[in-house]
């Protein structure tokens, strides 16, 4: 695991995959992609880091604890379903859309994005909470 080339490649790979994962999360509503796939791609990115530098480093790069991340994800998903309940638009998880223009940027935003973000976080958090634990445990036992 101490190969310089592998380490450099791992960093590169990580950044590329993380960007890719956000990209497929965002475009998921119209092209192949979405929260599940994006989340798995992000998790794969952190897996690379875990395998290359160990769980501790990967956990630092994640900033949030993976279990907290799962909670955030579930919270986002539930939150995305609440707006229609405030007005009289429909039931829980009836998604709303907003279309508009900021400067020259044509935007189309929906509460679906927040929902997909929730899915993304849950998947990332779920996969990584398992993975980090496995490799933390491994580190302790190796000592």
């Amino acid at each position: 695991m101490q190969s310089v080339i592998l380490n450099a490649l791992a960093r590169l790979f990580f950044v590329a995959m993380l960007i890719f994962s956000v990209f497929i999360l965002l475009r998921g509503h119209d092209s192949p992609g979405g929260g599940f796939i994006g989340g798995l791609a992000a998790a794969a990115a952190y897996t690379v880091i875990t395998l290359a530098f160990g769980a501790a480093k990967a956990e630092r790069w994640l900033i949030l604890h993976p279990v907290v991340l799962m909670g955030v994800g579930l919270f986002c998903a539930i939150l995305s379903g609440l707006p229609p309940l405030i007005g009289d638009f429909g039931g829980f998880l009836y998604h709303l859309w907003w279309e508009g223009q900021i400067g020259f940027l044509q935007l189309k935003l929906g509460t679906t994005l927040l929902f997909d973000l929730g899915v993304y976080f849950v998947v990332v958090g779920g996969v990584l909470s398992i993975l980090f634990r496995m490799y933390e445990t491994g580190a302790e036992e190796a000592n």
Partner: protein
Amino acid sequence: MSPVWFVIIAGVSALIAAPVTRAAGRFAGPLLALVPAFLFVSLLMQLPDLPVGTAILQSIEWVPAYGVSLGFRLDGFSLLFSLLITGIGTLVVIYAGSYFSDDAKDRGRFLGFILLFMTAMLGTVLADDLIMLFIFWEMTSLVSFFLIGFKHEDAKARKAALQSLVVTAGGGLALLGGIIILGLTAGTFSLTEITAQAPQIATSPAFPAIIVLVLIGCFTKSAQFPFHFWLPNAMAAPTPASAYLHSATMVKLGVYLLARFDTGFGEYLIFYAPLMIFGGITMLISAYAVMRSTGFKAVLAWSTVCSLATLVLLVGVPGEAGVKAMIGFLVAHALYKAALFFAAGQVIHSTHQYELARLGGLRFKLPITAIASLLAAISMAGVPFFLGYKAKDLFLTAAFDGGSWGMWLTVVALASSAVMTAVAGLAALKPFFLKPPYGEVKLYHNEYYGMALPPLALGLLGLAIGVMPAPAWNSVLIPAMSALYGSTIALEVHAAPSLGLKFLITLALLASGAALVWFWNRLYRDPDNVKANVVFADLGYGAVMGWLDRAGQVTARLLQMLSLRTYIAVTLGVSTLALLLALTGFSADMISAAAAEPVRPYMAVVLVLTLIGAAVAAFARSVLISILGVGIVGYTMAVVFLLNGAPDVAFTQFTVETLSIVILLAVLLRLSLKPAPQQSLLKRPLALAVSAGFGIAVGLGVLAMSVLPFDRRLSDFFGEASYLEAQGHNVVNVILVDFRALDTLGEIAVVAFATLCVWALLRRRVKKEG
């Protein structure tokens, strides 16, 4: 005050009993007794509002969909019962306060249970809705369980508690069955309405089932043969509980409900014949058993069984005479038997002596208790100028008018009961007025007033009603009789005995009772004594419970083989057979039809790889290679999805497969096991047969599925609505985050919780090692 309030006030007092006891200390008994006393007075104040033949009905909707309501009914009969419950309840609370004077914690617990029990009892007798009646009825059984097992360190008490619960709650189930059938037949659960339409119900084919189930419920509660054995065992309860639950009130609930049914169904043979038969048998058994009992409380318990049997029998006696005698005897018995239990409790508490034979000569040491006991026993024996005399007089009248069918039975049972009752009454005199057979009885403490005054009050009440009968009979007892009989009953009660045949019989009964007391010591020394006690004890119950135990063991051994292989073989073997059976309609043509389809070359190569992967996974010698095989299957599946227009699924499958392998390898490496030897193929014929059979069945199922017509409606809807209604081009994603978002939310929650479990499981390991 409307009926529901009685129940609510009692319930609140039960809830606050424990803290109040803690705060009030020694005065907790008299203080908490104010609640039942208040209820007693309030009930008495209802009397003017309740002329003979009327009832106060109150109904609160509860489960309107099933016609269940909180229906209350206060008429003469339930008023009588409520007066007994609250009146004796007042005395019991005072008595228990002294009884548990040594232990404040026990006192609080006990008083809480007693008041809770009072709530349940009031609920039962005030209920008009049968479902509600049943709930309170079961509540009394539960509280009884806790009170019998009050001394929970004592294995015998625990056993007796469990026995009473099994018998009474088991009977309660039968009662519930009866009530439900009755409710469905009558279209209502209201006791009032059911009584009104009794003739129609009696013609329904379900009528015999209703009666049998209700009888089982009542017989278990009131300890009638063949369920009589639990009551003597229930004497493991503290004496105040025995006096209250197992003599004066709870065990009379069976009689109560039977009497309620008697109003509507009393003229039907199927109802009254069992009462006469089983009541009579129980009377004979208990009359014999009481002569063979040696424990103070055991004698009282068996005589209680006998009295309950008398009541059941009297409910069965058709006509006015039976009702009169039943009510008279009910009240007389409640007063004198509770007093005798109270006295027994005082004696046992102060002498630590449970055996009647060893007691004697306590009249100067426990003077108030001795007087109370004497008053109660005289009433019980049926001496003129006591309430018990009038009760016995009515009893004899009912027996002589018992109708052609029950004549001989009634007279025989009557005689045995009278003798037995006299014996029990006189035997209660033994501890106080007869010479102690084994020298002076040692006294551990002097008479407690809190335990001496309640029985005295009951004894004096028995005398007062005997000397001055008019107020009590006219305002309480006769209205109760009328309420039960359904029309006004005329009865004139005089204090003085009327001379005649019945008076002579009464005197003869007294004389024979005295003779039995004279011989009692000799009977007690009978060496057959122990055997005789066993005969009527709970042998049958023990046998039934033993069979249940063994049946459970056999079933567990049969079904729980503790082998995953066997479970899988059985489950999947049956599934395979079911699947093949369902597929019999599909001919072999479908296979040839499927074989004739064009083959996509790339796909064929991929699927061949799948087959290889599956084979490797199954048959590889090393687990590592098996994981590889599983990986091959997973990756080829990803390709299958990709080539069939599912890029999202393909990518997910691909990533998940990679992560799975990472985790499985991590587990495997962590365990650092030597390659586990796997048995060769031929040594596992069962696994091979089951797996091959299941695989073939599922494969055939897939073929059959492909020739079935396909319903595209849902898919088409998603295809059409995805962009127009949900603003998304990627239909799969739109389904996930919009159309079926709630599903997805549930699914990510499953993912979150499953991984949380993994995380927690591994954390334990880390902490332990750290």
